[in-house]
Each structure stands twice: as C-alpha cells, then as structure tokens.
C-alpha cells in the first residue's frame, strides 16, 4: 500500500472520531448487551441497545458501548452510533446494509454521503480486507443486540 492509500484509509474524519468518540461509555436503560471480538486481532466491544416504540416499529433510542481496538474500529463505532441513534430500527438497518455494501465493495462502490454521512470516510477501508472486519465489528454487535431485543419484543 502506498502513502496515498494510507491517507485514504486514515481520513481526517476517522482520526477525529478516534480521538473523540461519540456516545462512548455504557449507559442505562438497555434491553440487550452483547460482547463481540475479532478473533484475529483481539479487538472487542461491549455494546448495549435501548429501543422504544411498538413491537415491529421500534426506534433506536440509545446505543452505548465500551470498546478496545484500533482507530478504524473505534471510529466506526462512533460513526455508527451517530447514524443509528434516533432512527427507526428498519431505517437504521438499511443504513447498515448500505455500509456493509460499501465495506464489501473492495473499493469499487461509490459511497452515498446522504445516507452514510461521516461513514463515507470508510470508503478507503474497503480496499484493505484485513481492516474491513475492524470497521464492521461495532455494526455487527449493534445488529446482533438489536435482533435480540426485537425477538424478545415479538414474543
């Protein structure tokens, strides 16, 4: 990888979120808490979600987390919380899909700033297969925790 690739990977936005992560720290209330690890490198995240609203039409009221990891994984958690908190779950899941498509696109997918906001900064990560997992760790944890709450709610 070249110096340009490096700069594409470590965008200013990413380093900012890394230094000043949003929504970090575990908070109450929450309906589910999960713990995810990246087995290869050991990065980990403990993440809680708090959903409100009718079963089937929940909204993401809060996402809080505690995490250890590289700049990419930390910044990604921060951006993720910005993107999902306050959104209806269905909509947040769509944002997740869009982010996933970007990450799995090997650098060929054009990011949509209207949907992904600061998330577009991760476009450069998609070129580094080893780092894609870092960027997805918090999203996977969020999706897992959300699914648990929804399942519980629908019972």
């Amino acid at each position, binding site marked *: *990888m*070249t*110096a340009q690739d490096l700069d594409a990977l*470590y965008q200013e936005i990413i380093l900012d979120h890394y230094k000043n992560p949003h929504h970090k720290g575990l908070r109450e209330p929450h309906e589910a808490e999960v713990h995810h690890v990246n087995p290869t490198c050991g990065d980990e995240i403990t993440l809680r979600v708090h959903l409100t609203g009718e079963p089937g039409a929940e909204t993401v009221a809060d996402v809080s987390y505690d995490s*250890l*990891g*590289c700049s990419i994984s930390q910044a990604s958690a921060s951006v993720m919380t910005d993107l999902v908190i306050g959104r209806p779950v269905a909509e947040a899941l769509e944002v997740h899909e869009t982010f996933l498509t970007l990450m799995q696109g090997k650098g060929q997918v054009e990011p949509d700033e209207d949907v992904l906001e600061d998330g577009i900064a991760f476009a450069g990560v998609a070129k580094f297969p080893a780092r894609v997992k870092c960027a997805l760790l918090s999203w996977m944890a969020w999706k897992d925790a959300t699914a648990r709450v929804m399942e519980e709610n629908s019972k």
Partner: protein
Amino acid sequence: MSIAGLLPQLEVVRKDFPILERTLAGGMPLVYLDSANTSQKPQCVIDTMVDHLERHNANVARAMHQLGAESSEAFEAARDKVASFIGAPSRDEVIFTKNASEALNLVANTLAWARGDLALGEGDVVVTTEMEHHSNIVPWQLLTQRTGATLRWFGLTEDGHLDLSDIDELITERTKLVTLTWVSNMLGTINPVAAITRRAHEVGALVVVDASQAAPQLPIDLAAMPVEERPDLLAFTGHKVVGPTGIGVLWGSRAVLDELPPFLGGGEMIATVAMERSTYAGIPHKFEAGTPPIVEAVGLGAAVDYLSDLGMQHVHAHEQAITAYALEGLATVPGLTVLGPLDAAQRGGAISFEIEGVHPHDVAQVLDSRGVAVRAGHHCAKPAHARFGVQSSTRMSSYLYTTPGEIDALVEALEYTRSYFRLGDS
C-alpha cells in the same frame, strides 16, 4: 553496518530467498520482519519440491514401482534429515504431522484415550504456562475437560520470565504432564527446559516441549541431553524453519510413543485390518494415517539441510546480534515499551512492543505502507497479553536473512508512525 555475530556473507544468503527481492505497492522494497509467524523459503527448498513433483511424484510405502521407490526413499531420507537436525536418539521417533498444532494435539488427544500408566483422571494435574501459544493451551484445556484432570499454570514475572517460585506446588506427585514452550513467540523468552524437565521427571511426569520457535533459532541435540533433562516429546513446525507449510514434526521417545494409543486411523498406520479388529504398525507409521505430506516432508528435509549447512550455531548468533541491535533501536522510539526480556542473550528473535497512543493495528498498517511487514494482534498468546494488561501488541521478528539495515528501516517507520498519528509533540 558491521555487527559481531552476523552471518558471514549475509547478502549472498539473502540471494537464496527469492521473495526478498520483491517490491510492494508504491515500489517499496520488502522488509520482512514477520518470521516468527512464518519464515521465507530459500530457492533450494522450492527447487527440491518442484523436482519431486515433476520427476519423482508417487505415493510412498505402498508403491513398488520405480517412482514409488524414489518417492519413498526421498520421504524417508527427509525423516533421517529431521532426526539428525534435532539429534533424535532414533529416526523412528520422528513423526510427520501437518504442523506443530497437530503434533501437540496428537499427544493431548491420544492421552485422552490412554489406559494404564499414562491415563489421566480426576485429581491428576497437567501444568502449562501463561506464555504458551494457543496451540499449546487449547489441547490441554480439552484434555483436562475430557478426563476430569486439572490444568494448572506457571505464571510470569514482570520482566517476562516464567515465575518458578511456586514450582513445588505445581510439580507434585499428582502432576502427570508438564508442557512448556522452549522459546516464547510473544515475549521472546528462552525457558529453562532442562531444569524444569529434570524436576518433572523426578515426580514421574511427562514433559512436552513446544519447540516451534526454538527449532528455527537454537541448535537442538536431544541425544546429547542427559536423559533426566530430555523432554519426552517435542513439537515443531516446518514453515518456521524455512520449510513449506503442511508439515510439522513430533519427536517422542520410543517408550512413550509405543505406549500411546493410535491417533488417526487409516492407511499406513495398520498392521492388519479385519472386520472384527485391527492391529497397528510400529512407530513412526502408527501415527501417520493416510498419505503423508510427501512433497512437504521432502521440502522440509531440504530446509533443515539448508539450516545445517549454515550451521545452527551461526543462525543463533545472527539472531542474537540482530535482536540486540533491534532492542537498541526500539529503545530510541519515544513511548515504545518492549514486552519481555530486554537482554538479547536471554531471548529469541521475536520482539513484541506497544507504542503509547497508537493501536498495534494502526502501527502495522503504517509500517506496511513503508514495506515493513510486522504482525499486530495477540499473536495467539491471549493469556500472556492478559497477564501484561494489554489487549494486543506489535511484533517484529527477524531471521537469518534479516539485516541491520532492515532494523533501521523499522525504527524509521516507527518514528514516521508516531508523526503520522501526531504523537511527535507528546
């Protein structure tokens, strides 16, 4: 850049390794400092494998035709070479596995089915250490879970040595097996294998040594060790001693290997097979079910020949010289802390470190942009990381082809990393 102990004609030696001439993205030359993960291969190993595949390929043992005879001879000659590389008392005690992990699991797995003397049960103790590679932890967790025995651990001192202060509580009459790594892949520490083996033998415990990092770096001569200090079993892996992947070695004393039940069942490991029952071949074949990694063994044979031609004492001296030089260089990087012994004479060539304020992933990434290949993560040694309160680290690991210039490139790249992450002013 003349440092005492370096391999003579290092530039010529480097020419043996074609990959070292590669350039990476942006035209960067490769600075390969990830040899504890896997070593690079000299041309002679590759050529030997190609010659086998293009001219002598056939199955072994079973085939009576000329190709079969040639292939069998090459395969068994590889066993002789490996036996002499580690000074095995008998060449039949050398068992080919697919890697070090399989070799260690072979022991743990067969012990789970052992009856008599070797059987394990409630109250029996297996001792390992906190600095082991996962491949020398998980097999023993599975074994003790399955037999009801207890797994106990040697702890680590602050400076990365085994903490032997509670050896008398750990190695007792109840201890059936003690296992440890000879050289740590994370801390670099060289452990006192002889002393611990002697102690374990006093209570009648078996000793299993993980030599995955030792075999590449230290001259090993099992036959020359006093029998009380000689481990009963020893494992290493082909791809770290300039050999190919897909091949590992378990050496074991005949007495122990004869007593262990079979591991995998199938072709080559049998004496006779009948519907009612089967009987098994003698060692080494008893533990080599199915078609073995033939071309891999042949490649490993060429690899250990290559190392022996260089002389393992010279490889070791080179490693120590480079390690000392690297420790010096790393000490100049602000905010960098080395995990493990700081004296090159007490350690192998893997050096793990932290840089305050930059995650190891990010360090490795920036280094990679300068062509410097290191490893970042837990290096399959989570308990050792936990012991030092770190989640992961960056590791540089040199080998016989590493030059002082490459260490300089690493140190420069680390400086650059600090400035990239704006730590310059801290």
